């Protein structure tokens, strides 16, 4: 187990994917269980990579050149298949600590167990990879490359090589869909490095503010959108959708001051869902059940017909009360004065005053100067 190293999961140049198991692979250090349970296993012509299912960034790798031989362990009834990998002592330690999760291990073998199957294919692929010994060619390649690294010409040549390689891997990845699926992770990181470098030198990836905004919205993706396929078409679907919406939009709505028009929601939600488009009708229906579900946001329809989602904490009666307190403090208020105090729009401020009036907290003075509200003395002082 001490031969494993941490790594970032990206392939080296000329490294090829041979076989991949998505999940259910557990690692044993000798006969002992390790913390590396439930992962995916990737076999390349140089390495074995194990990747955690929980955090997709956690990778450890084992160089194939350290493998002596492998054997299958019988997988009796109810037990997962096992493969034992025997390893040589790493020759050159040079007193350094290795960059792996385990520093010292008494065992000279590790085991993989395969809860979801796949061990037979893995066994044959691994055996043939060990026989081919392709890593030896890589070592040779590495040496010849190193010679070029002298002077400015060397640097330039190196950059050119690298660019050519990137071009090649892009065109290979986008050959067809299955290729792209295999290489998706590499392409994600490649696109990120390119974008990052361009950003470092030039600023934004695009001058166009819509495209920048799009990038931002897309990056807030939902990993598991509620669809009609997963939740049927009826009530359940809208309820689940309502939860997803509330979950997704609570923060943006809060940042926007507690209220956001439904059109904005439609755009943001669909961007986050990516290709799983939501229709305006479904969105409205989902918003309608929010209040019943007691979610942190709910639908509000203004008299003008404008629909918004707002935070449930901003209840009408609470807002009316706070407006009447402000009126009392300032003696009298118009809607535009209140709007400036609260930092909301004039129309919204007027609505709050009107609802405070309806509750009897304040009363109006409607004159040519406009509509002004005072504390309702009739109610408080008369009784």
């Amino acid at each position: 187990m001490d031969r494993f190293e941490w790594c970032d999961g990206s392939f080296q140049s000329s490294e090829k994917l041979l076989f991949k198991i998505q999940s259910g692979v557990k690692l044993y250090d000798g006969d002992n269980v390790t913390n590396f349970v439930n992962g995916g296993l990737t076999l390349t012509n140089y390495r074995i990579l194990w990747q955690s299912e929980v955090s997709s960034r956690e990778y450890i790798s084992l160089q194939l050149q350290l493998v002596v031989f492998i054997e299958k362990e019988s997988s009796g009834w109810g037990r997962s298949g096992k493969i034992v990998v025997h390893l040589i002592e790493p020759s050159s330690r040079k007193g350094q600590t290795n960059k792996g999760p385990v520093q010292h291990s008494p065992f000279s073998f590790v085991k993989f167990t395969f809860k979801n199957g796949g061990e037979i294919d893995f066994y044959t692929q691994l055996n043939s990879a060990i026989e081919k010994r392709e890593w030896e060619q890589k070592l040779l390649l590495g040496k010849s490359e190193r010679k070029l690294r002298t002077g400015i010409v060397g640097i330039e040549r190196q950059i050119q090589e690298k660019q050519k390689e990137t071009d090649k891997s892009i065109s290979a990845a986008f050959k067809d869909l299955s290729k792209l699926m295999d290489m998706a992770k590499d392409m994600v990181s490649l696109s990120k490095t390119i974008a990052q470098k361009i950003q470092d030198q030039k600023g934004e990836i695009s001058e166009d503010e819509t495209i920048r905004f799009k990038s931002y919205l897309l990056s807030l993706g939902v990993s598991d959108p509620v669809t009609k396929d997963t939740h049927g078409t009826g009530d359940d679907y809208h309820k689940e959708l309502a939860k997803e919406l509330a979950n997704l939009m609570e923060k943006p709505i809060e940042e926007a001051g507690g209220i956001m028009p439904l059109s904005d929601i439609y755009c943001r939600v669909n961007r986050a869902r990516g290709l799983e488009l939501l229709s305006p009708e479904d969105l409205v229906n989902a918003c309608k059940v929010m209040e019943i579900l007691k979610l942190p946001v709910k639908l509000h329809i203004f008299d003008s017909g404008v629909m918004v989602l707002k935070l449930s904490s901003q209840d009408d009666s609470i807002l009316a009360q706070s407006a009447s307190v402000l009126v009392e403090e300032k003696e009298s208020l118009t809607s535009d004065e209140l709007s400036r105090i609260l930092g909301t729009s004039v129309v919204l401020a007027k609505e709050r005053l009107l609802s405070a009036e309806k509750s009897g907290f304040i009363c109006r003075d409607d004159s040519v100067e406009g509509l002004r509200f005072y504390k309702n003395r009739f109610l408080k002082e008369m009784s």
Partner: protein
Amino acid sequence: MRRRVGGVGAIQKQQLAQARFRNKGSEIAEDQLQQMTKQMEVFRTKLQEFASNHKNEIRKDPYFRCQFQEMCATVGVDPLASSKGFWAKMLGVGDFYYELGVQIIEVCIATSHQNGGIIGLDELREKVMKSRGSKKRQEDITQDDLLRAIDKLSVLGKGFRLIPAGNHYLVQSVPAELNMDHTTILQQAEGTGFISLMALRRTQKWGEERAQNALEDLVKEGMAWVDDQAKDEGERLYWFPGLLQDKLVSW
């Protein structure tokens, strides 16, 4: 012992060498940037092709879908790329108009800090086409397509609507309830008690439609009065009786 580098000549020589290195360095960096921009373009076009050709396959695999979305986000590609197709054209069904709706609102939100949520249909069309990407698909967005897509959004309430203005249309994406322009106008008029369209546009750098719209809202709300007496010399004035209170006392 090593001889120390001395004299003006040596220093100049050194500086020259350094300058050359710098030049070479920026040359390489420039070159690299160009290459990468090219690669980015290739990446974008390919990603766009995949989005339009393999939509359903991509949707099926949740793991891959996430990665696809991540790629689109980093390079700024629009994953929504349904083609109009026969049925969309004839009956307005299918994802095309829904997708267009998302793209339309996106443009409106992204530009609202400049235009206050009011945009002309032509400008909108231009920006939507740009944000959809590849030239090949741009040609098929017409004004009629935009109108249809916006019509489908009407279910979302009156917050997002078309305003007919003479022989063209305006699109309003920020409803009066959330419009802060009114507050801005009142603030500006505070000193004098009145304002004109031109004065407002000059100080706030607003487009004519935006300013006009906000002023008319205030008139409708009963907060502003129209004064055409000064029209001979200039233009219509908007008075705010609520702001005149203090002035009346001092008159």
